[in-house]
Protein backbone atom coordinates (compact mmCIF):
# COMPACT_ATOMS: atom_id res chain seq x y z
CA UNK A 1 0.00 0.00 0.00
CA UNK A 2 1.46 3.33 -1.04
CA UNK A 3 1.06 5.88 1.77
CA UNK A 4 -0.97 9.06 1.23
CA UNK A 5 2.02 11.34 1.72
CA UNK A 6 3.67 9.98 -1.42
CA UNK A 7 0.68 10.91 -3.52
CA UNK A 8 0.52 14.35 -1.96
CA UNK A 9 4.24 14.88 -2.54
CA UNK A 10 3.90 13.82 -6.19
CA UNK A 11 0.92 16.15 -6.63
CA UNK A 12 2.81 19.05 -5.06
CA UNK A 13 5.85 18.36 -7.28
CA UNK A 14 3.67 18.24 -10.41
CA UNK A 15 2.00 21.48 -9.39
CA UNK A 16 5.36 23.19 -8.76
CA UNK A 17 6.75 22.00 -12.12
CA UNK A 18 3.64 23.52 -13.70
CA UNK A 19 4.12 26.83 -11.90
CA UNK A 20 7.81 26.98 -12.87
CA UNK A 21 6.97 26.13 -16.47
CA UNK A 22 4.31 28.81 -16.62
CA UNK A 23 6.62 31.44 -15.21
CA UNK A 24 9.75 30.63 -17.24
CA UNK A 25 8.58 29.39 -20.67
CA UNK A 26 7.93 31.91 -23.41
CA UNK A 27 5.73 29.92 -25.79
CA UNK A 28 1.99 30.27 -25.30
CA UNK A 29 1.32 26.58 -26.00
CA UNK A 30 3.96 25.42 -23.49
CA UNK A 31 2.58 27.85 -20.91
CA UNK A 32 -0.85 26.39 -21.47
CA UNK A 33 0.52 22.85 -21.07
CA UNK A 34 2.11 23.93 -17.79
CA UNK A 35 -1.32 25.02 -16.56
CA UNK A 36 -2.65 21.57 -17.48
CA UNK A 37 0.17 20.07 -15.43
CA UNK A 38 -0.90 22.20 -12.45
CA UNK A 39 -4.50 21.06 -12.88
CA UNK A 40 -3.40 17.43 -12.97
CA UNK A 41 -1.47 17.97 -9.76
CA UNK A 42 -4.75 19.15 -8.24
CA UNK A 43 -6.60 16.14 -9.67
CA UNK A 44 -4.08 13.71 -8.21
CA UNK A 45 -4.37 15.45 -4.85
CA UNK A 46 -8.16 15.23 -4.90
CA UNK A 47 -8.34 11.60 -5.99
CA UNK A 48 -5.74 10.43 -3.46
CA UNK A 49 -7.42 12.32 -0.64
CA UNK A 50 -10.81 11.07 -1.72
CA UNK A 51 -9.58 7.48 -1.51
CA UNK A 52 -7.96 7.88 1.89
CA UNK A 53 -10.78 9.96 3.39
CA UNK A 54 -13.33 7.55 1.98
CA UNK A 55 -15.46 10.36 0.54
CA UNK A 56 -16.55 10.58 -3.08
CA UNK A 57 -16.67 14.37 -3.24
CA UNK A 58 -13.04 14.61 -4.29
CA UNK A 59 -13.59 12.25 -7.21
CA UNK A 60 -16.67 14.16 -8.34
CA UNK A 61 -14.65 17.36 -8.17
CA UNK A 62 -11.95 15.76 -10.33
CA UNK A 63 -14.47 14.93 -13.03
CA UNK A 64 -15.62 18.53 -13.10
CA UNK A 65 -12.04 19.78 -13.30
CA UNK A 66 -11.25 17.47 -16.22
CA UNK A 67 -14.39 18.58 -18.06
CA UNK A 68 -13.72 22.27 -17.52
CA UNK A 69 -10.07 21.81 -18.54
CA UNK A 70 -11.27 20.38 -21.86
CA UNK A 71 -13.53 23.39 -22.47
CA UNK A 72 -10.71 25.68 -21.42
CA UNK A 73 -8.34 23.98 -23.88
CA UNK A 74 -10.83 24.50 -26.72
CA UNK A 75 -11.09 28.23 -26.02
CA UNK A 76 -7.38 28.70 -25.30
CA UNK A 77 -6.24 26.99 -28.49
CA UNK A 78 -8.86 28.97 -30.44
CA UNK A 79 -7.42 32.22 -29.12
CA UNK A 80 -3.88 30.98 -29.81
CA UNK A 81 -4.84 30.28 -33.45
CA UNK A 82 -6.39 33.74 -33.82
CA UNK A 83 -3.19 35.20 -32.40
CA UNK A 84 -1.01 33.15 -34.75
CA UNK A 85 -3.02 34.31 -37.74
CA UNK A 86 -2.45 37.95 -36.93
CA UNK A 87 1.15 37.75 -35.65
CA UNK A 88 2.61 34.61 -37.28
CA UNK A 89 3.96 33.66 -33.86
CA UNK A 90 2.76 32.49 -30.46
CA UNK A 91 5.87 33.67 -28.65
CA UNK A 92 5.18 35.81 -25.61
CA UNK A 93 7.95 38.25 -26.49
CA UNK A 94 6.08 39.25 -29.65
CA UNK A 95 2.88 39.92 -27.71
CA UNK A 96 3.88 43.43 -26.73
CA UNK A 97 1.53 45.82 -28.51
CA UNK A 98 -0.29 46.68 -25.30
CA UNK A 99 1.81 48.40 -22.67
CA UNK A 100 2.11 51.58 -20.62
Amino acid at each position, binding site marked *: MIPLSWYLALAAILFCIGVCGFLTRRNVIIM*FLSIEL*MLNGVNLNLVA*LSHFLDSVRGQAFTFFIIT*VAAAEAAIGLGIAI*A*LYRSRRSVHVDTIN*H*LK*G
Partner: protein
Amino acid sequence: MIHTAAVSWTALEPILPELLLIGIGVLLIGCDLFLPRQRQLLPWLTVLGCLTALAMILAAQPVTAFGGMFLADGYAKVFKVICLGAVILTTLMAGQFRRLIGPRQGEYDSLLLFSLVGMLLMASAGDLMVLYLGLELMALPVYALVGLHKREQRTSEAAIKYFLMGAFASALLLFGMSLLYGLTGTTDIGRIAELIASRNLAANPALLAALGLLLAGLCFKVAVAPFHLWTPDVYEGAPTLVTAFMSVGPKAAGFAIFGRMLLEGLPQLQGHWGPILAVLALLTMAVGNITALCQHSLKRMLAYSSIAHAGYAVLGLLPGTAEGMAATMTYLVVYLFMNLGAFAVLMLLAAPGQSRESIDDCKGLATRHPVVAALMLVFLFSLTGIPPTGGFIGKFYLLKAAFTAGYTLTVVGAVLFSAISAYFYLRVVRLMYMSEAEAPVSLTFSPGMTAALGLCLAGALGLGLFPGSLLGWIVAALTGS
Protein backbone atom coordinates in the same frame (compact mmCIF):
# COMPACT_ATOMS: atom_id res chain seq x y z
CA MET B 1 -35.38 -4.34 -16.14
CA ILE B 2 -35.00 -0.58 -16.01
CA HIS B 3 -35.24 1.27 -12.73
CA THR B 4 -36.36 4.85 -13.00
CA ALA B 5 -35.76 7.26 -10.19
CA ALA B 6 -38.52 9.71 -9.43
CA VAL B 7 -37.33 13.18 -10.40
CA SER B 8 -38.59 15.92 -8.18
CA TRP B 9 -38.96 18.92 -10.47
CA THR B 10 -39.76 21.22 -7.60
CA ALA B 11 -36.14 20.82 -6.47
CA LEU B 12 -35.19 22.90 -9.50
CA GLU B 13 -37.21 25.89 -8.36
CA PRO B 14 -34.34 27.85 -6.74
CA ILE B 15 -32.31 27.79 -9.97
CA LEU B 16 -35.20 28.77 -12.26
CA PRO B 17 -33.73 32.23 -13.07
CA GLU B 18 -30.45 30.60 -14.13
CA LEU B 19 -32.28 28.00 -16.23
CA LEU B 20 -34.35 30.74 -17.86
CA LEU B 21 -31.20 32.68 -18.78
CA ILE B 22 -29.56 29.56 -20.24
CA GLY B 23 -32.71 28.94 -22.27
CA ILE B 24 -32.65 32.49 -23.60
CA GLY B 25 -28.94 32.16 -24.40
CA VAL B 26 -29.62 29.08 -26.53
CA LEU B 27 -32.65 30.78 -28.09
CA LEU B 28 -30.46 33.75 -29.05
CA ILE B 29 -28.06 31.45 -30.92
CA GLY B 30 -31.03 29.87 -32.70
CA CYS B 31 -32.56 33.23 -33.65
CA ASP B 32 -29.19 34.44 -34.86
CA LEU B 33 -28.89 31.40 -37.11
CA PHE B 34 -32.42 31.14 -38.49
CA LEU B 35 -33.69 34.74 -38.41
CA PRO B 36 -30.69 36.81 -39.49
CA ARG B 37 -32.92 39.73 -40.50
CA GLN B 38 -34.24 40.19 -36.99
CA ARG B 39 -30.83 40.57 -35.41
CA GLN B 40 -31.51 44.06 -34.08
CA LEU B 41 -34.15 42.54 -31.78
CA LEU B 42 -31.68 40.25 -30.00
CA PRO B 43 -30.37 42.84 -27.48
CA TRP B 44 -33.95 43.63 -26.47
CA LEU B 45 -34.64 39.92 -25.97
CA THR B 46 -31.54 39.77 -23.76
CA VAL B 47 -32.69 42.75 -21.69
CA LEU B 48 -36.17 41.26 -21.37
CA GLY B 49 -34.74 37.95 -20.17
CA CYS B 50 -32.51 39.69 -17.64
CA LEU B 51 -35.41 41.79 -16.32
CA THR B 52 -37.53 38.65 -15.89
CA ALA B 53 -34.70 36.92 -14.04
CA LEU B 54 -34.25 40.05 -11.91
CA ALA B 55 -37.92 40.03 -10.94
CA MET B 56 -37.77 36.30 -10.12
CA ILE B 57 -34.67 36.74 -7.96
CA LEU B 58 -36.12 39.73 -6.09
CA ALA B 59 -39.36 37.88 -5.41
CA ALA B 60 -37.72 34.60 -4.31
CA GLN B 61 -37.63 33.52 -0.68
CA PRO B 62 -34.24 32.63 0.83
CA VAL B 63 -33.65 28.87 0.43
CA THR B 64 -30.83 26.36 0.56
CA ALA B 65 -31.02 23.95 -2.35
CA PHE B 66 -29.21 20.83 -3.54
CA GLY B 67 -27.96 19.80 -0.13
CA GLY B 68 -26.31 23.11 0.68
CA MET B 69 -24.57 23.43 -2.68
CA PHE B 70 -26.73 26.31 -3.87
CA LEU B 71 -27.59 29.10 -1.45
CA ALA B 72 -30.25 31.53 -2.63
CA ASP B 73 -29.85 33.80 0.41
CA GLY B 74 -29.83 37.57 0.82
CA TYR B 75 -26.08 37.73 0.25
CA ALA B 76 -26.48 36.04 -3.12
CA LYS B 77 -29.48 38.21 -3.97
CA VAL B 78 -27.54 41.48 -3.68
CA PHE B 79 -24.68 40.23 -5.84
CA LYS B 80 -27.09 38.79 -8.39
CA VAL B 81 -28.80 42.18 -8.70
CA ILE B 82 -25.42 43.85 -9.31
CA CYS B 83 -24.43 41.30 -11.99
CA LEU B 84 -27.82 41.50 -13.72
CA GLY B 85 -27.59 45.29 -13.63
CA ALA B 86 -24.18 45.16 -15.30
CA VAL B 87 -25.44 42.90 -18.09
CA ILE B 88 -28.61 44.95 -18.65
CA LEU B 89 -26.69 48.23 -18.87
CA THR B 90 -23.98 46.88 -21.19
CA THR B 91 -26.58 45.27 -23.44
CA LEU B 92 -28.41 48.58 -23.70
CA MET B 93 -25.15 50.25 -24.71
CA ALA B 94 -24.48 47.63 -27.39
CA GLY B 95 -26.60 49.55 -29.91
CA GLN B 96 -23.67 51.96 -30.17
CA PHE B 97 -21.53 49.06 -31.35
CA ARG B 98 -23.92 47.68 -33.98
CA ARG B 99 -21.46 48.51 -36.75
CA LEU B 100 -18.65 46.71 -34.92
CA ILE B 101 -20.62 43.73 -33.66
CA GLY B 102 -22.85 43.50 -36.72
CA PRO B 103 -23.29 39.87 -37.73
CA ARG B 104 -21.95 38.67 -34.38
CA GLN B 105 -24.88 40.06 -32.40
CA GLY B 106 -26.24 36.63 -31.48
CA GLU B 107 -22.87 35.28 -30.40
CA TYR B 108 -22.18 38.40 -28.39
CA ASP B 109 -25.47 38.38 -26.50
CA SER B 110 -25.49 34.65 -25.82
CA LEU B 111 -21.89 34.69 -24.53
CA LEU B 112 -22.85 37.57 -22.25
CA LEU B 113 -25.82 35.58 -20.90
CA PHE B 114 -23.78 32.41 -20.29
CA SER B 115 -21.22 34.48 -18.44
CA LEU B 116 -24.08 36.00 -16.43
CA VAL B 117 -25.28 32.53 -15.42
CA GLY B 118 -21.75 31.79 -14.20
CA MET B 119 -21.80 34.95 -12.11
CA LEU B 120 -25.17 34.08 -10.60
CA LEU B 121 -23.84 30.62 -9.67
CA MET B 122 -20.77 32.20 -8.07
CA ALA B 123 -22.98 34.45 -5.98
CA SER B 124 -25.00 31.43 -4.81
CA ALA B 125 -22.14 28.98 -4.34
CA GLY B 126 -22.31 27.08 -1.07
CA ASP B 127 -19.81 24.44 -2.11
CA LEU B 128 -16.30 24.61 -3.53
CA MET B 129 -17.38 22.64 -6.60
CA VAL B 130 -20.22 25.02 -7.46
CA LEU B 131 -17.93 27.95 -6.77
CA TYR B 132 -15.33 26.61 -9.21
CA LEU B 133 -17.89 25.70 -11.89
CA GLY B 134 -19.54 29.13 -11.63
CA LEU B 135 -16.16 30.82 -11.85
CA GLU B 136 -15.24 28.95 -15.01
CA LEU B 137 -18.67 29.40 -16.56
CA MET B 138 -18.24 33.12 -15.96
CA ALA B 139 -14.66 33.27 -17.24
CA LEU B 140 -14.76 31.10 -20.39
CA PRO B 141 -17.33 33.22 -22.29
CA VAL B 142 -15.48 36.39 -21.28
CA TYR B 143 -12.22 35.04 -22.77
CA ALA B 144 -14.13 34.57 -26.02
CA LEU B 145 -15.80 38.01 -25.76
CA VAL B 146 -12.44 39.74 -25.31
CA GLY B 147 -11.13 38.16 -28.50
CA LEU B 148 -14.38 38.61 -30.42
CA HIS B 149 -12.91 40.79 -33.19
CA LYS B 150 -10.33 38.41 -34.52
CA ARG B 151 -9.08 40.83 -37.19
CA GLU B 152 -7.91 43.40 -34.72
CA GLN B 153 -4.45 42.62 -33.40
CA ARG B 154 -5.01 44.16 -30.00
CA THR B 155 -7.99 42.00 -29.08
CA SER B 156 -6.32 38.62 -29.61
CA GLU B 157 -3.34 39.81 -27.61
CA ALA B 158 -5.65 40.90 -24.80
CA ALA B 159 -7.57 37.63 -25.02
CA ILE B 160 -4.48 35.42 -24.75
CA LYS B 161 -3.14 37.43 -21.81
CA TYR B 162 -6.47 37.25 -20.03
CA PHE B 163 -6.83 33.56 -20.77
CA LEU B 164 -3.37 32.55 -19.52
CA MET B 165 -3.64 34.64 -16.36
CA GLY B 166 -7.19 33.51 -15.65
CA ALA B 167 -6.35 29.82 -16.10
CA PHE B 168 -3.24 30.17 -13.92
CA ALA B 169 -5.29 31.85 -11.19
CA SER B 170 -7.91 29.10 -11.37
CA ALA B 171 -5.21 26.47 -10.95
CA LEU B 172 -3.83 28.23 -7.84
CA LEU B 173 -7.35 28.48 -6.43
CA LEU B 174 -7.96 24.79 -7.13
CA PHE B 175 -4.81 23.67 -5.37
CA GLY B 176 -5.88 25.70 -2.35
CA MET B 177 -9.31 24.05 -2.51
CA SER B 178 -7.81 20.56 -2.73
CA LEU B 179 -5.76 21.26 0.42
CA LEU B 180 -8.91 22.50 2.20
CA TYR B 181 -10.68 19.31 1.14
CA GLY B 182 -7.81 17.21 2.41
CA LEU B 183 -7.87 18.89 5.81
CA THR B 184 -11.61 18.82 6.36
CA GLY B 185 -12.87 16.00 4.12
CA THR B 186 -15.69 18.12 2.76
CA THR B 187 -16.23 20.71 0.05
CA ASP B 188 -19.17 22.40 1.72
CA ILE B 189 -18.07 25.94 2.63
CA GLY B 190 -20.15 26.17 5.80
CA ARG B 191 -19.01 22.70 6.99
CA ILE B 192 -15.38 23.66 6.36
CA ALA B 193 -15.70 26.52 8.87
CA GLU B 194 -17.32 24.20 11.46
CA LEU B 195 -14.65 21.53 11.04
CA ILE B 196 -11.79 24.03 11.25
CA ALA B 197 -13.27 25.24 14.54
CA SER B 198 -14.02 21.78 15.99
CA ARG B 199 -10.70 20.20 14.98
CA ASN B 200 -8.61 23.22 15.99
CA LEU B 201 -6.99 23.49 12.59
CA ALA B 202 -6.52 27.27 12.65
CA ALA B 203 -2.74 27.07 13.17
CA ASN B 204 -2.19 24.13 10.81
CA PRO B 205 0.56 25.01 8.28
CA ALA B 206 -1.28 23.22 5.46
CA LEU B 207 -4.35 25.37 6.15
CA LEU B 208 -2.22 28.50 5.97
CA ALA B 209 -0.78 27.31 2.65
CA ALA B 210 -4.34 26.75 1.40
CA LEU B 211 -5.28 30.25 2.56
CA GLY B 212 -2.30 31.72 0.71
CA LEU B 213 -3.18 29.92 -2.53
CA LEU B 214 -6.86 30.88 -2.25
CA LEU B 215 -5.99 34.53 -1.61
CA ALA B 216 -3.63 34.61 -4.59
CA GLY B 217 -6.24 33.06 -6.88
CA LEU B 218 -9.03 35.34 -5.69
CA CYS B 219 -6.84 38.45 -5.88
CA PHE B 220 -6.05 37.57 -9.50
CA LYS B 221 -9.75 37.40 -10.27
CA VAL B 222 -10.65 40.78 -8.79
CA ALA B 223 -7.35 42.40 -9.92
CA VAL B 224 -5.86 43.23 -6.53
CA ALA B 225 -2.15 44.13 -6.57
CA PRO B 226 0.34 42.47 -6.89
CA PHE B 227 -1.81 40.18 -9.05
CA HIS B 228 -3.21 43.00 -11.21
CA LEU B 229 -0.63 43.01 -14.00
CA TRP B 230 -2.95 41.56 -16.63
CA THR B 231 -5.69 44.16 -16.05
CA PRO B 232 -4.51 47.28 -17.91
CA ASP B 233 -3.51 45.36 -21.04
CA VAL B 234 -6.69 43.31 -21.16
CA TYR B 235 -8.94 46.29 -20.44
CA GLU B 236 -7.24 48.38 -23.10
CA GLY B 237 -7.16 45.69 -25.77
CA ALA B 238 -10.71 44.41 -25.39
CA PRO B 239 -13.59 46.14 -27.20
CA THR B 240 -14.75 49.04 -24.98
CA LEU B 241 -18.14 47.45 -24.45
CA VAL B 242 -16.57 44.23 -23.14
CA THR B 243 -14.16 46.24 -20.98
CA ALA B 244 -17.07 48.09 -19.40
CA PHE B 245 -18.76 44.78 -18.63
CA MET B 246 -15.58 43.11 -17.32
CA SER B 247 -14.72 45.96 -15.01
CA VAL B 248 -18.06 45.61 -13.22
CA GLY B 249 -19.75 42.21 -13.59
CA PRO B 250 -16.96 39.66 -13.16
CA LYS B 251 -15.36 41.89 -10.54
CA ALA B 252 -18.56 41.95 -8.46
CA ALA B 253 -18.89 38.17 -8.84
CA GLY B 254 -15.25 37.82 -7.79
CA PHE B 255 -16.03 39.79 -4.64
CA ALA B 256 -19.03 37.52 -4.06
CA ILE B 257 -16.82 34.41 -3.85
CA PHE B 258 -14.12 36.37 -2.02
CA GLY B 259 -16.60 37.27 0.73
CA ARG B 260 -18.17 33.82 0.79
CA MET B 261 -14.82 32.04 1.12
CA LEU B 262 -13.34 34.34 3.75
CA LEU B 263 -16.40 35.21 5.82
CA GLU B 264 -18.22 31.88 5.75
CA GLY B 265 -15.44 29.41 4.97
CA LEU B 266 -12.43 30.71 6.87
CA PRO B 267 -13.70 33.09 9.61
CA GLN B 268 -11.30 31.55 12.16
CA LEU B 269 -8.36 32.72 10.08
CA GLN B 270 -9.46 36.37 10.14
CA GLY B 271 -6.35 37.20 12.17
CA HIS B 272 -4.26 36.02 9.21
CA TRP B 273 -6.17 37.27 6.17
CA GLY B 274 -7.25 40.58 7.70
CA PRO B 275 -3.77 42.15 7.90
CA ILE B 276 -2.68 40.55 4.59
CA LEU B 277 -5.65 42.05 2.80
CA ALA B 278 -5.10 45.42 4.49
CA VAL B 279 -1.58 45.57 3.04
CA LEU B 280 -2.77 44.35 -0.38
CA ALA B 281 -5.57 46.96 -0.40
CA LEU B 282 -3.09 49.75 0.30
CA LEU B 283 -0.74 48.43 -2.39
CA THR B 284 -3.61 48.18 -4.88
CA MET B 285 -4.75 51.74 -4.24
CA ALA B 286 -1.17 52.98 -4.55
CA VAL B 287 -0.48 51.14 -7.81
CA GLY B 288 -3.85 51.97 -9.38
CA ASN B 289 -3.95 55.65 -8.52
CA ILE B 290 -0.29 56.51 -9.06
CA THR B 291 0.01 54.68 -12.40
CA ALA B 292 -3.22 56.26 -13.61
CA LEU B 293 -1.58 59.69 -13.18
CA CYS B 294 0.71 59.21 -16.17
CA GLN B 295 -1.73 57.69 -18.69
CA HIS B 296 -2.56 59.36 -21.99
CA SER B 297 -5.27 56.93 -23.03
CA LEU B 298 -8.59 57.51 -21.29
CA LYS B 299 -9.43 53.81 -21.57
CA ARG B 300 -6.18 52.77 -19.91
CA MET B 301 -6.67 55.41 -17.24
CA LEU B 302 -10.09 53.95 -16.46
CA ALA B 303 -8.45 50.49 -16.33
CA TYR B 304 -6.00 51.66 -13.65
CA SER B 305 -8.83 53.46 -11.87
CA SER B 306 -10.77 50.18 -11.76
CA ILE B 307 -7.74 48.54 -10.09
CA ALA B 308 -7.75 51.31 -7.50
CA HIS B 309 -11.47 50.83 -6.90
CA ALA B 310 -10.92 47.11 -6.30
CA GLY B 311 -8.53 48.24 -3.57
CA TYR B 312 -11.24 50.41 -1.97
CA ALA B 313 -13.79 47.59 -2.17
CA VAL B 314 -11.40 45.21 -0.33
CA LEU B 315 -11.55 47.57 2.69
CA GLY B 316 -15.03 46.29 3.45
CA LEU B 317 -13.79 42.69 3.68
CA LEU B 318 -11.18 43.51 6.35
CA PRO B 319 -13.45 43.50 9.44
CA GLY B 320 -14.92 40.12 8.47
CA THR B 321 -18.39 41.22 9.54
CA ALA B 322 -21.77 41.57 7.84
CA GLU B 323 -21.56 45.38 8.22
CA GLY B 324 -18.23 45.44 6.39
CA MET B 325 -19.56 43.21 3.63
CA ALA B 326 -22.63 45.49 3.34
CA ALA B 327 -20.25 48.43 2.78
CA THR B 328 -18.45 46.52 0.00
CA MET B 329 -21.77 45.63 -1.61
CA THR B 330 -23.01 49.22 -1.44
CA TYR B 331 -19.78 50.36 -3.04
CA LEU B 332 -20.10 47.79 -5.82
CA VAL B 333 -23.64 48.99 -6.59
CA VAL B 334 -22.47 52.61 -6.80
CA TYR B 335 -19.41 51.54 -8.80
CA LEU B 336 -21.68 49.72 -11.27
CA PHE B 337 -23.42 52.97 -12.17
CA MET B 338 -20.50 55.39 -12.13
CA ASN B 339 -17.99 53.17 -13.92
CA LEU B 340 -20.41 52.02 -16.62
CA GLY B 341 -21.43 55.67 -17.06
CA ALA B 342 -17.83 56.76 -17.63
CA PHE B 343 -17.31 53.90 -20.10
CA ALA B 344 -20.57 54.82 -21.86
CA VAL B 345 -19.25 58.33 -22.51
CA LEU B 346 -16.01 56.80 -23.79
CA MET B 347 -18.08 54.67 -26.18
CA LEU B 348 -20.03 57.73 -27.35
CA LEU B 349 -16.79 59.47 -28.27
CA ALA B 350 -15.66 56.56 -30.44
CA ALA B 351 -16.48 57.24 -34.07
CA PRO B 352 -16.35 55.04 -37.15
CA GLY B 353 -12.78 54.45 -38.17
CA GLN B 354 -11.16 56.15 -35.18
CA SER B 355 -11.18 54.99 -31.60
CA ARG B 356 -10.79 58.41 -29.86
CA GLU B 357 -9.56 56.87 -26.65
CA SER B 358 -7.00 59.54 -25.80
CA ILE B 359 -7.59 62.00 -22.99
CA ASP B 360 -7.04 64.85 -25.46
CA ASP B 361 -10.16 63.79 -27.34
CA CYS B 362 -12.20 65.24 -24.47
CA LYS B 363 -10.94 68.74 -25.23
CA GLY B 364 -13.71 71.28 -25.55
CA LEU B 365 -16.46 68.70 -25.15
CA ALA B 366 -18.45 71.09 -22.96
CA THR B 367 -18.93 73.72 -25.65
CA ARG B 368 -19.99 71.23 -28.33
CA HIS B 369 -21.95 68.70 -26.30
CA PRO B 370 -22.78 70.25 -22.92
CA VAL B 371 -25.05 67.38 -21.86
CA VAL B 372 -22.44 64.67 -22.50
CA ALA B 373 -19.80 66.75 -20.72
CA ALA B 374 -22.10 67.26 -17.73
CA LEU B 375 -22.76 63.52 -17.55
CA MET B 376 -19.04 62.75 -17.67
CA LEU B 377 -18.54 65.38 -14.95
CA VAL B 378 -20.99 63.59 -12.64
CA PHE B 379 -19.41 60.18 -13.26
CA LEU B 380 -15.87 61.48 -12.72
CA PHE B 381 -16.89 63.34 -9.54
CA SER B 382 -18.49 60.13 -8.33
CA LEU B 383 -15.37 58.10 -9.12
CA THR B 384 -13.30 60.66 -7.21
CA GLY B 385 -15.71 60.49 -4.30
CA ILE B 386 -16.97 64.07 -4.15
CA PRO B 387 -20.37 64.65 -2.47
CA PRO B 388 -23.29 64.63 -3.28
CA THR B 389 -22.53 61.74 -5.65
CA GLY B 390 -22.83 58.04 -4.85
CA GLY B 391 -19.08 57.54 -4.92
CA PHE B 392 -18.69 59.64 -1.77
CA ILE B 393 -21.29 57.65 0.14
CA GLY B 394 -19.78 54.33 -0.97
CA LYS B 395 -16.28 55.35 0.10
CA PHE B 396 -17.59 56.76 3.37
CA TYR B 397 -19.18 53.44 4.39
CA LEU B 398 -16.04 51.52 3.41
CA LEU B 399 -13.72 53.76 5.38
CA LYS B 400 -16.07 53.67 8.35
CA ALA B 401 -16.15 49.85 8.27
CA ALA B 402 -12.36 49.56 8.09
CA PHE B 403 -11.90 52.27 10.76
CA THR B 404 -14.22 50.65 13.31
CA ALA B 405 -12.33 47.38 12.80
CA GLY B 406 -9.11 49.17 13.80
CA TYR B 407 -7.31 49.46 10.46
CA THR B 408 -6.53 53.15 11.02
CA LEU B 409 -3.36 53.30 8.91
CA THR B 410 -5.08 51.66 5.96
CA VAL B 411 -7.90 54.19 6.20
CA VAL B 412 -5.44 57.10 6.25
CA GLY B 413 -3.72 55.64 3.19
CA ALA B 414 -7.04 55.19 1.39
CA VAL B 415 -7.97 58.84 1.98
CA LEU B 416 -4.57 60.02 0.74
CA PHE B 417 -4.72 57.92 -2.43
CA SER B 418 -8.29 59.05 -2.98
CA ALA B 419 -7.03 62.64 -2.90
CA ILE B 420 -4.31 61.74 -5.43
CA SER B 421 -6.95 60.22 -7.70
CA ALA B 422 -8.68 63.60 -7.91
CA TYR B 423 -5.77 64.83 -10.05
CA PHE B 424 -6.32 62.49 -12.97
CA TYR B 425 -10.11 62.45 -12.85
CA LEU B 426 -10.36 66.22 -12.68
CA ARG B 427 -7.74 66.64 -15.42
CA VAL B 428 -10.34 65.21 -17.81
CA VAL B 429 -12.91 67.68 -16.44
CA ARG B 430 -10.46 70.55 -16.98
CA LEU B 431 -9.87 69.48 -20.59
CA MET B 432 -13.60 69.19 -21.21
CA TYR B 433 -14.48 72.60 -19.80
CA MET B 434 -11.40 74.79 -20.17
CA SER B 435 -9.80 73.79 -23.46
CA GLU B 436 -10.67 74.61 -27.03
CA ALA B 437 -11.81 71.75 -29.23
CA GLU B 438 -9.36 70.73 -31.94
CA ALA B 439 -11.79 69.11 -34.35
CA PRO B 440 -15.57 68.97 -34.42
CA VAL B 441 -16.92 65.78 -32.89
CA SER B 442 -20.30 64.49 -33.98
CA LEU B 443 -21.95 62.09 -31.56
CA THR B 444 -24.76 59.71 -32.37
CA PHE B 445 -27.03 58.36 -29.68
CA SER B 446 -28.78 55.03 -30.01
CA PRO B 447 -32.00 54.69 -27.97
CA GLY B 448 -30.44 52.02 -25.75
CA MET B 449 -27.43 54.21 -25.05
CA THR B 450 -29.67 57.10 -23.99
CA ALA B 451 -31.53 54.79 -21.61
CA ALA B 452 -28.27 53.39 -20.21
CA LEU B 453 -26.83 56.87 -19.65
CA GLY B 454 -30.04 57.96 -17.94
CA LEU B 455 -29.96 54.92 -15.63
CA CYS B 456 -26.29 55.46 -14.79
CA LEU B 457 -26.91 59.13 -13.99
CA ALA B 458 -29.92 58.27 -11.84
CA GLY B 459 -27.87 55.64 -10.02
CA ALA B 460 -24.76 57.76 -9.47
CA LEU B 461 -26.72 60.80 -8.25
CA GLY B 462 -29.69 59.06 -6.64
CA LEU B 463 -27.55 56.82 -4.43
CA GLY B 464 -25.63 59.91 -3.32
CA LEU B 465 -28.77 61.85 -2.40
CA PHE B 466 -30.71 58.97 -0.81
CA PRO B 467 -28.02 56.61 0.50
CA GLY B 468 -29.93 55.12 3.42
CA SER B 469 -32.41 53.10 1.39
CA LEU B 470 -29.77 51.06 -0.46
CA LEU B 471 -27.70 50.30 2.64
CA GLY B 472 -30.87 49.50 4.58
CA TRP B 473 -31.96 47.04 1.90
CA ILE B 474 -28.54 45.37 1.78
CA VAL B 475 -28.26 45.05 5.57
CA ALA B 476 -31.79 43.64 5.71
CA ALA B 477 -30.90 41.13 2.97
CA LEU B 478 -27.73 40.09 4.80
CA THR B 479 -29.23 39.70 8.23
CA GLY B 480 -32.37 38.09 6.83
CA SER B 481 -34.79 40.39 8.64
